[in-house]
């Protein structure tokens, strides 16, 4: 399997991107800064309007103001709402300054909002495991599902460490399946394309364009990372409680996110994995292991047949 190992590209470079050679465009992505997110959900709607995504059910969850609940085939931007009895700011010596000191003594209260999206991983599991080449790395370094190719095998769904991808069980809106099979549902896998078509036309993605407070920033990834570092330093200086970047570092388990975040608490609080790893990182080992098992099977069965009598 060292063949495969040799194919692995240096950390931080998106798999499959090099091949574009001169057609390769600057790698772009999102920096979602939750410290300015007002939870308006314009991103959710902008995304649906542009990408003609079907409505996703009208369920009142009681989970603060979040009735979208998760990213899935019909929701490519999802705003999480977390109400905490925890102050927004802490001053130098750790003492806490609650933004809200309502009522009785008032423990600090804060309301975290975060617009989640596909991470467009540098090393993307969905991309690796897709058996048809429907999922592919674009010239912009993003990861996109090609709807004319996807055959709905669903392998990418459990492969994604963020639970971003999902199969659409609603009726097909574009190129519906042939009638003979009598299928009603779309049956393909959908996720954020980082507005691939808009990028090709030189427009910024719909969600970033709509965002009223520029919590969602779009741009060249390199630039966004610099901006994020500066932002983190500023918030730290201002004593923001729990400020941290998530997915900014190319050395993490997925080689850094193409769409990374500034969070105000640990990732799992927002429903994000604290240490996502691209499952195919272990694939060479798994292949070796499998060949061994296969060999053992061959040897074992043959041996047990040859040795010992016919009865």
């Amino acid at each position: 399997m060292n063949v495969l190992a040799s194919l692995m590209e240096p950390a931080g470079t998106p798999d499959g991107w090099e091949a574009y050679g001169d057609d390769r465009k600057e790698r772009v992505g999102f920096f979602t800064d939750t410290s300015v997110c007002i939870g308006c959900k314009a991103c959710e709607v902008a995304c649906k309007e542009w990408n003609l995504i079907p409505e996703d059910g009208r369920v009142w969850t009681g989970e603060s103001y979040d009735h979208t609940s998760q990213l899935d085939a019909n929701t490519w931007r999802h705003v999480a709402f977390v109400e905490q009895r925890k102050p927004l700011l802490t001053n130098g010596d750790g003492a806490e300054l609650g933004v809200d000191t309502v009522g009785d003594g008032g423990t600090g209260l804060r309301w975290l909002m975060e617009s989640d999206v596909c991470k467009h991983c540098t090393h993307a599991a969905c991309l690796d495991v897709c058996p048809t080449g429907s999922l592919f790395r674009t010239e912009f370094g993003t990861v996109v599902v090609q709807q004319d190719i996807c055959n709905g095998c669903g392998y990418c769904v459990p492969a994604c460490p963020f639970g971003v991808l999902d199969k659409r069980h609603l009726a097909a809106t574009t190129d519906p399946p042939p009638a003979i099979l009598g299928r009603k549902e779309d049956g393909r896998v959908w996720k954020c394309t980082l507005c691939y078509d808009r990028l090709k036309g030189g427009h910024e993605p719909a969600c970033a364009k709509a965002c009223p407070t520029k919590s969602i920033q779009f741009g060249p990834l390199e630039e966004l990372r610099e901006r994020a570092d500066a932002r983190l330093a500023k918030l730290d200086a201002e004593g923001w409680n729990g400020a941290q970047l998530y997915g900014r570092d190319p050395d993490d388990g997925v080689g850094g996110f193409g769409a990374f975040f500034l969070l105000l608490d640990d990732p799992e609080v927002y429903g994000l994995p604290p240490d996502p790893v691209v499952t195919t990182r272990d694939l060479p080992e798994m292949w070796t292991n499998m060949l061994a098992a296969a060999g053992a099977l061959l040897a074992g069965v043959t041996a047990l047949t040859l040795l010992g009598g016919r009865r």
Partner: protein
Amino acid sequence: MRSYYGRPIIKEPTWTWEIPTYFFTGGLAGASSVLSSAARVTGNDALARRALYVGAVADLVSPVLLISDLGRPERFHHMLRVVKVTSPMNLGSWVLLVNGGATTTAAMLQLLGKWKPLRIAASIVAALAGPPLATYTGVLVADTAVPVWHEARHELPWIFGASAAASAGAAASMFVHPRDAGPARRIAVAGVLAEGALMQAMELRLGTVGEVYHQGEAGKLSWAAKGLSVAGAALLATRGRKSRASAVLGGALVCAGELCLRWSVFKAGFQSARDPKYVVESQRQRIEKDGTNATTKPGENPAPPGRGA
């Protein structure tokens, strides 16, 4: 354990009943083609022929199962659009194509009793493609973000291999007269024993993540798997040689057991994906262990922006 309203972090697979069933048929097909060729070498033609037919049938059923699970069945051929070393499902499709093609060809020629050399060649190809076919499905599930699958990546191919052998042996001993079925019974029994041991090893490694094998459907199925396969193996070992009926019953029990085993692994994955605790805890442990994580706290210096953009 903190989470977002207890919602899952990763998605459950969208796969339906066809997939675990295919894990079984694929394994059966793969191991059978080995068994068939091996028997041929020892001149046990009865065993060879029956094993070949069993494999052929399993090989014919498998793609049907796979295709019917697709969201867009009419696009099944897109599987062969590419050759992706990073995609177990893609390579698996190629292997299934080769093994299935070879086995069915061999079986056809066997029936017609024609072109012996070609038949032999086909059997050899099938025998070589068989073991990968029987074991790659272990990698297929391990190569996901599902904790109970991914963390078991070392054992799963072996477990699936052993299970495949057991089912192939068991199936053969059902259709072959006991006087010719010795190898088949030995393989079945050995397979069941091996897989039992491997399962224990896996659960040992998994720790808390593995607890899903004792909960809900996965729990029930894994008990059924153990019960049925052990009972069947015992029956084959003790009375399989004398009584045809016991052989058939024993073989059936083992096959049923192996089917349950695949199902329990399958279901375990769903349960593991459903509860965010497994994702968070396994990752938090990893962070404790090797200090890696995806966050950058103030003061930490991440790699310079220059990289990876």
